[in-house]
């Protein structure tokens, strides 16, 4: 073994890894460009938002090409996509073959690529929104977009992480910039308070998560996620699952600690307390960014983490049922708490924050069902891998719809704030009486809220149905899943009330006498209409079928 062979090995693997990693690299380059442009002084000529938009669009195109390459297997139907392949020189060796890259630290597969695609699309939409609302002024623009791109790189790493170390690095990379983003309105008391709470508790739970990682990695002798199940099963040998054995209890403690860290990012009860404060203190744009981006990334990470314990050994089956039920309990508590607490809110952002807590609960139900189904004992009525595919499919679909519905809601809040200078629900009274663009905002907000409730013609309905179906099927393995589904269904009915209350304020209540008619800029109306359109489309068009098939395709690739 000489140095030459080692370097040779490294160089043989590196080009493929870099090719897959191109979108992240583009984002990193965007960060550097943003900062350099300020040093050179051309941020006066080229506003930072343009640099950010161009960078994120390029990254989006790169990941789009990768995704299409994976999906179509290099023979895309449209000329545009094919020429995109050619420009980016995508090769079957690089993006075409799924598998770990960067020496096993990251994983390239359909699941991760779809999530990266969604996250980058979200970034593009988010930056456009900030341009419309003008929340970072031209002076602070480079900082804001650098933070946003930096956090997005962390999210992209999170959805591809394949190693416990990368899990921690990714969570840190997406959290630390978002702490600053929450406190971005640094002159405001509320903003700095929100940031302080977020950073203090966030750092604490990150520490707990790290301790859990050290326990797991030490016990299993490796940080590789897909190996965890094999190694644990090997260690346990013929033993059954019992909390009396040192190995089991160490592993369970470790897993719980890791899940604490992830649950904090997902604002699940009882780690939710930061969310309402952070969302209220931060600007609505940042709230939207956190509520969608970091949630999607952490859910992907959680799926990868729990899939590490995939295996057909009894001890793993008991372990994942145990974890699945634990997460299920957490899910129903979260959705119930979120919906109940949202009743009394008078601030729009705070209401949406509690609504995110509830929605995190719904999505966690899918993960819980996944765990229960995944290692179903042989002889049960459900085919484990088929059931698990449905769970992941539901989660993916839900997140895709959630992206649009939450983004619409937060965008409307931000745009209305620019006109009425208030985020209280009372300020929305009679908003429908405003100008044409304002009317569009109101209607789109109504769409988004209906979709959040899960009313039939909208995308949110199908998302909920997919998840509830998956959880219902899991019920045949353990009866408690049925209880969870019932509670979740009741929650959906509860939640109708507070969403409708907002809509009543907008559409029925008379506008306050001392307020001039609200005239949002027409560009804002177009933008919101654009992002609310998918909610309708995903509810009642062939695209709904397309997305669900894509989600299924992606999910099934996880279990090959």
């Amino acid at each position, binding site marked *: *073994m*000489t140095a*030459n062979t080692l370097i040779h*090995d490294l160089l043989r693997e590196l080009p493929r890894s870099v090719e897959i990693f191109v979108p992240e690299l583009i984002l990193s380059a965007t960060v550097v460009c943003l900062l350099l442009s300020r040093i050179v002084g051309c941020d006066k000529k080229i506003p930072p938002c343009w640099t950010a938009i161009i960078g994120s669009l390029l990254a989006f195109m790169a990941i789009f090409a990768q995704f299409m390459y994976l999906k179509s297997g290099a023979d895309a139907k449209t000329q545009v996509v094919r020429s995109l392949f050619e420009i980016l020189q995508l090769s079957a060796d690089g993006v075409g073959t799924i598998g*770990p890259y960067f*020496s*096993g630290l990251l994983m390239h597969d359909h699941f991760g690529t779809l999530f990266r695609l969604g996250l980058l699309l979200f970034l593009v939409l988010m930056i456009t929104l900030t341009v419309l609302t003008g929340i970072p002024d031209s002076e602070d623009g480079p900082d804001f977009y650098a933070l946003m791109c930096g956090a997005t790189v962390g999210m992209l790493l999170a959805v591809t992480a394949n190693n416990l170390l990368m899990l921690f690095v990714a969570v840190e990379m997406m959290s630390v910039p978002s702490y600053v983003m929450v406190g971005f309105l640094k002159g405001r008391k509320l903003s700095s308070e929100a940031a302080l709470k977020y950073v203090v508790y966030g750092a604490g739970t990150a520490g707990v998560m790290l301790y859990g990682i050290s326990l797991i990695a030490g016990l299993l002798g490796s940080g*590789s996620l*897909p190996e965890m199940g094999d190694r644990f099963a090997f260690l346990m040998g013929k033993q059954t699952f019992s909390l009396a054995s040192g190995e089991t209890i160490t592993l369970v403690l470790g897993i719980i600690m890791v899940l604490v860290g992830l649950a904090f990012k997902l604002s699940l009860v009882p780690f939710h307390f930061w969310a309402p404060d952070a969302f209220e203190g931060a600007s609505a744009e940042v709230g939207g960014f956190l509520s969608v981006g970091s949630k999607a990334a952490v859910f992907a990470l959680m799926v990868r983490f729990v899939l590490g314990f995939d295996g057909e050994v009894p001890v793993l089956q008991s372990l994942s049922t145990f974890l699945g039920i634990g997460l299920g309990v957490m899910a129903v508590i979260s959705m119930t708490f979120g919906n109940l607490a949202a009743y009394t809110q008078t601030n729009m952002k705070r209401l949406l924050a509690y609504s995110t807590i509830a929605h995190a609960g719904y999505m966690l139900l899918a993960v819980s069902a996944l765990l229960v189904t995944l290692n179903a004992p042989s002889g049960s009525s459900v085919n484990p891998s088929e059931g698990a595919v449905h769970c992941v499919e539901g989660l993916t679909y839900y997140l895709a719809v959630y992206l649009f519905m939450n983004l619409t809601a937060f965008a409307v809040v931000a745009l209305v704030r620019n006109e009425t200078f208030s985020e209280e629900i009372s300020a929305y009274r009679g908003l429908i009486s405003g100008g044409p663009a304002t009317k569009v905002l109101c209607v789109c907000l109504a769409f988004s809220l209906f979709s959040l409730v899960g009313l039939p013609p909208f995308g949110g309905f199908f998302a909920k149905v997919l998840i509830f179906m998956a959880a219902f099927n899991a019920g045949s393995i353990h009866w408690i899943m049925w209880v969870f589904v019932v509670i979740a269904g009741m929650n959906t009915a509860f939640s109708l009330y507070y969403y409708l209350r907002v809509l009543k304020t907008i559409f029925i209540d008379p506008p306050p006498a001392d307020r001039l008619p609200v005239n949002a800029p027409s560009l804002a109306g177009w933008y919101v209409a654009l992002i609310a359109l998918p909610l309708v489309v995903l509810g009642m068009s062939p695209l709904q079928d397309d997305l669900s098939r894509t989600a299924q395709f992606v999910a099934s690739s996880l279990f090959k």
Partner: protein
Amino acid sequence: MMLPMAATPTIVESLAGWLASWISSSPDAVRFVAAALHIGLLAAFFGLPAFAFIWAERKVSARIQDRLGPTHTGGRFGWLQSLADGIKLIQKEDLAPAAADRMLFRVSPYLVVIASFASFLFMPFSNGWVAVALDCGLFIGMAVLSLEVLGVVLAGYSSGSKWSLFGGMRETAQMVSYEVPLGLTAVIPVLICGTMNLNEICQMQSGWFTNWLVFHSPFTFVAFFVFFVVTLASNKRAPFDLAEAESELVGGFHTEYSGMRWSFFFLAEYASMFFVSGLGVLLFLGGWWTGIAPIDSALSEVLGGYPGRVLGLLVFLTKSSLLVVVQIWVRWTLPRLRIDQVMETCLKYLVPISCFLFIGSVMYPLVLLSALGRPTLLPVNSIGTRVPVLPPAAVPVTTPHDHPHDHSHPHDHNHGHGPGEHSHGPGGHSSLDRDPAEKPAAREVTLRGGR
């Protein structure tokens, strides 16, 4: 490539060997005694420079200001002045202000002294004469030295005086900022030598003085001076002594201290001056080598190299002391900067300059290599021919010859791989210049994890 140094025993080991021939006891006990002796030796090295340099500071400052300085104590040059001062300071009452946080107030001078003393553990005084020989010697030496700031800050804070607090704050800001260019310039020799072991770095500068790293390239030449300036600042020496700044802050962080505790701060300061000067000498100025090849090579042969090492010790001490004298000279010549100027010097000038030097000294050998075919302007020396050494692998490495010193290793290393190879001790270094034809049969990097 064999390193010439690797087998040289450290002082503790030679001491232990020497002791073992006198007393018959368990090896552990012998090592313990040897270590204790060594600590005593180090303490002497730690304390003596302080006394010498305090005296030197007085004499030099006096000469610069056209005075005589101490003349009476201990004879003609007043060379016992420091000792007299020390005795006086010991007798003084140990005061603590009423507003002080007593515990921290008392402890912080010790923190400073401990940090300063601990950094001497990693400094080789001559070839192999180092208390703890580590591969990351430079790194850890700087790490330990940077702990000094904690004592200063706590001293400033616990005194319960705003002047002290100001001094402590300034010191923190200054130290934390100057750590960056310090690290960047100190890493340049590491890059060139491919090791962080101070002993090895110095060993590579043997031969004529043109081999000293300061003459290695234009970039290292400048880097030495940047390094020197930065060490002035990180030692809070004038013109960067804002933490004391007696014209503004009375005495800065040590305003409230008196007696022994006060003198501890000075002991530590002068010892650190010696340490950073020694670091500069080791990194850039050829360490313990005289710079005249025949003398070194002649002396390193006889009597097991002991005369050579003793000479090396003397050379090292002389070089370092000269640098300390330059520090003193600078102090009494240049006016103090303002705090904002100090920060500006660091962040606006020294950091970019050291980044530039860092990049430059990376590019320089590459450019020369493509232009001249060799990585240095001067005739190829030990540094120029050096190749990166990879870590000892846990499995047999394939090098054409066996190593002369094959130290014990827990691994079983009998399984070779591929024909035409012969295994040897895993302590060997596999290096880049080995014949690539000898590499084992093609190996697939198997990375599992795909589902």
